[in-house]
């Protein structure tokens, strides 16, 4: 009996991510959700621009690669073209919360029946470690070399909190993948977000606090600890909106 195996919705392509980068865990959770709901044949994914730009090589579903920040708009087009398809986007913090803030807010406001996976690691990984809209005050990055100074570089954006104000958003939850317990909760949330779409329950976004050992300048193990010490206190885990939970 197989206790644990790689999900079917992941291809055999070796992942290009850095050692210990939790993108790999999150990809697996998305693939497990697709497998468990039996939707591989009718799922279409939208890859974004960031470390995960080549996500189209890792999922076995049809995929389109979107311009930086525009994935929710592309997903809107794909979903409106055929609402029977299950459409998801997979985006980093620059893609979703910087250049793509408008598309993120409006796809939520419209209540598009899509699933957004938002990977928040408080830094721009692909381009070599610049400040992200979600970088923490005082965090040292390539473009905040003296530490993020809120006076001149502003405050981080808390996306789940912000989007929770929108009537159009159905389900918003923030999770993390820095421990087995958190990974299991993240899996539940991601599965629920996809199931919501299958059941026509509108817009779901799961914000996953992730690590970037390379650009944080830490070992993978220390990066998991930094999530507990610094990230989660600023970005508390939990459900920020659940329209269908209230209706019980």
């Amino acid at each position, binding site marked *: 009996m197989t206790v644990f195996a790689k999900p079917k919705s992941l291809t055999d392509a070796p992942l290009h991510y850095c050692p210990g980068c939790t993108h790999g865990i999150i990809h697996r959770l998305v693939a497990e959700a697709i497998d468990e709901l039996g939707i*591989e*044949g*009718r*799922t*279409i994914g*939208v*890859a974004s621009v960031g470390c995960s*730009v*080549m996500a*189209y*090589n890792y*999922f*076995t*579903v*049809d*995929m*389109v*690669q*979107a*311009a930086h920040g*525009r994935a929710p*708009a*592309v*997903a*809107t*087009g*794909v*979903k*409106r*073209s*055929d609402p029977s*398809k299950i459409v998801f986007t997979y985006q980093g913090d620059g893609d979703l919360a910087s250049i793509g803030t*408008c*598309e993120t*807010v*409006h796809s939520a406001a*419209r209540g598009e029946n899509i699933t957004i996976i938002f990977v928040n690691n408080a830094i721009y990984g692909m381009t070599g470690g610049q400040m992200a809209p979600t970088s923490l005050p005082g965090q040292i990055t390539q473009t905040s070399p003296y530490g993020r100074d809120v006076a001149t570089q502003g405050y981080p954006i808390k996306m789940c909190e912000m989007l929770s104000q929108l009537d159009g958003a159905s389900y918003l939850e923030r999770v993390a993948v820095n421990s087995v317990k958190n990974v299991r909760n993240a899996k539940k949330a991601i599965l629920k977000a996809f199931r919501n779409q299958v059941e026509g329950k509108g817009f779901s976004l799961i914000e996953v606090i992730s690590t970037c050992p390379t650009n944080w300048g830490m070992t993978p193990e220390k990066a998991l600890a930094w999530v507990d010490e610094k990230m989660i206190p600023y970005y508390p885990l939990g459900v920020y909106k659940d329209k269908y939970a209230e209706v019980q």
Partner: protein
Amino acid sequence: MAEKVLMKGNEAIAEAAILAGCRHYFGYPITPQTEVAAYMAKRMPKIGGTFLQAESEIAAINMVIGVASTGKRAMTSSSSPGISLKCEGLSYLAGCDLPALVVNVERGGPGLGGIQPSQSDYFQATRGSGHGDFHMIVLAPASVQEMASLTMKGFDLADKYRMTSMILADGTMGQMMEPVILEAPELVKYEKPWALTGTDGKRPHNIVNSLFLVPEDLEKMNFARYERYRTVEENEAAAEEFMMEDAEIAVVAFGVAARVSKNAILAARERGIKVGLIRPITLWPFPKANIAAAAAHAKHFVSVELSMGQMIEDVRLAMDCARPVSLVNRAGGMIPSPDEVLAEIEKIQGGIHA
């Protein structure tokens, strides 16, 4: 027999798109094309199509990309500044080899400019619609009937060649009302094995993508694309010729400039001047053959434009600068008058028959 109706150019585009099988429109209000969106807002819900006023022109073109990637016909419309916003999306459409229809009802520029008509996005449409090597098929209507017929043709060519078709209409075309016959075209069904339709567990996944990090691969994509563009140039260049058979002076103009020029030409002919009009219907591919052939007998060309002179460069190139080309132009939303064109024709006549 389809009936003749009196319609505004912008609305004719919308109805023609629907007749051509387009069921997805994404737009944003901007003068002078907002009627396209308003018409679609009323019509699309009634036929089970998508009308969506997007959050921006950028979002709109990306929604078009989304639909196009699934193999269905989709369109957006905007006007000059909004088209600038879409440039990234136009490049992505080309890099992904996706069909789409984009309408630009041009207004005065640059910057916020004005809301009166112009043709000053010619360079943008034919040369600079986005980063990288690519072309769009650019169609220039000169009547409300052509607003409709070129929209239908645009969808067909887009699917046939896996390209974007752009309807480049000056503001006059969008706003004017003329009788138009709207007839559903014979819809050719193009196979789209690349489309994202869900694997259904029966085939390997399709990827719609423009990222090719291995330079040899990206080079191959570019060369293959330009092979296709060569076919388009060989087969799809189109122009109307008016009184060109014996012309010693050739006027080249599109859109409203062509309408104005025809009046000037008729007046000039009454004065015995042998002048004709070449009206490009496709701006890309530019009807080079028509220009080159005319250069055999026409001694002087006149480019009439609502810009600071953009198409004039293509006129010169098409005949290897064999003949002199003058420019009659207005800008900022002003339209050249027949008298202004006639004055230039007479000046040239004086010169070549001095």
